[in-house]
């Protein structure tokens, strides 16, 4: 089989497909800036502050999409023990944490002019997303703490599932606790967005999804390379051990 990666450059994680995808994302971002700042109309109440929706909502959407991939990958690792799914779970978690951080950040910056506050403890989605962020930061910290490869994968998978099953409970508890929300019910299903605003929002989500795919492919390949490197190191260690016993005059017993 011809190696697609080496057909472009011998020592990178890019391939023809990711290069094209990368350019599409770049043009998508340019289009989104033009649409978001110049084409989409301002809101009657929020005025131009509404333009934050085009970065905030896609980030929020991708946060939950990425962590769903992590949960699925965790489940698949525990079921099939396939390295592929383990790396997918790890990659999605890392990218998801970035999106989650951006969701919280853009939400706060948007909240200041529209809700008159950066942070509101009474808002369900805000607080739920924050707790999810903290759990997934813990997930990455656990991964970073290291250890034997399979053990790390199993630990991380359990934490990934733990986060996923607790999200509905966290959401419910925050909702009862605060009993009020500042968020619009749902910007997409409400139907009271201007056509062009809605269109721009969809473009934003598509661009973010494409970026997610691009980043997932690259991040997956990094995970794959790290796995291969550990393998190479292990092989070298075994070879070294064999050489040692071969020179041992008493005759080592390693097979």
């Amino acid at each position: 089989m011809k190696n697609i990666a080496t057909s472009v450059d011998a020592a990178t994680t890019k391939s023809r497909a990711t290069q094209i995808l990368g350019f599409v994302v770049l043009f998508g971002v340019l289009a989104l800036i033009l649409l978001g700042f110049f084409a989409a109309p301002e809101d009657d109440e929020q005025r131009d502050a509404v333009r934050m929706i085009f970065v905030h909502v896609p980030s929020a959407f991708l946060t939950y999409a990425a962590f769903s991939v992590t949960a699925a990958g965790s489940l698949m690792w525990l079921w099939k023990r396939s390295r592929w799914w383990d790396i997918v779970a790890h990659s999605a978690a890392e990218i998801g944490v970035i999106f989650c951080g951006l969701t919280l950040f853009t939400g706060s910056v948007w909240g200041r002019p529209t809700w008159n506050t950066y942070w509101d403890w009474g808002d369900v989605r805000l607080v739920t997303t924050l707790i999810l962020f903290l759990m997934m930061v813990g997930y990455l910290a656990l991964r970073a703490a290291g250890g034997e490869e399979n053990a790390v994968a199993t630990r991380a998978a359990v934490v990934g599932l733990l986060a996923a099953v607790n999200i509905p409970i966290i959401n419910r508890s925050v909702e009862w606790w605060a009993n009020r929300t500042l968020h619009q019910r749902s910007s997409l299903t409400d139907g009271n967005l201007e056509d062009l605003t809605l269109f721009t929002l969809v473009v934003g989500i598509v661009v973010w999804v494409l970026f997610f795919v691009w980043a997932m492919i690259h991040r997956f390949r990094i995970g794959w390379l790290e796995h291969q490197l550990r393998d190479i190191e292990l092989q070298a260690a075994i070879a070294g051990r064999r050489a040692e016993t071969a020179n041992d005059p008493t005759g080592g017993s390693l097979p």
Partner: protein
Amino acid sequence: MLADVWLVTNKDLRIEWRSRVTFNQVVPFALIVLVLFGFALDTNRAVLRAATSGVFWLTVLFVAVVAVTRSTMIEISDGARRALLLGGIEPVAIYFGKTLAIAIQLFGVELLMVGGVIFFFDATIASWPLLLATCVVATWCVAASGTLLGALVANVAARDTVLPILLLPVLAPVLIAASRAFDDALGVLVVDGWVWLGLLAAFGIVNATLGTLAYGTLLEEA
């Protein structure tokens, strides 16, 4: 099965009875945290009373981190974990046994802390049944997640720092729900504490189920 659960619980409690680690270190720690919150929150009685439930359960979470660490240490020293598995005890029985042992110890600490908040924070108990039921259910929740995550980090080198960052966010709903139920039990706030108890029960069931499913895998592989 139930006999095995009790065997493990009994083992952990007996180790505690002989070593008195929880009693000698965790109880003073809990009381110190309560007293420090007293300083932090001013001499104003109204503020103290309003914050009592939250302070109580936050202290319980801190104590839980210490208790779970201790419970994990028991198993990793001298390869006790492997011995338990080799002894033919089901991982599920080990999970529930250790959860029960942590829960019983935490419950004991909580009873002393109730005395502490009555004494230092001027708390009055409006409903003892709700108060005790909240303690029982919330303690089970804390112990169920704690035992699972304790086994999960057992062989991680940075175990002492990784455990709190994993455990505390997971326990956020327990802190919220138990504090609200306590608000009702202490007569601080007009809410229905029993509804919050239902949410705690749901948390306990979900997390104990996940623990049941994952504990064996973690013991053998992680």
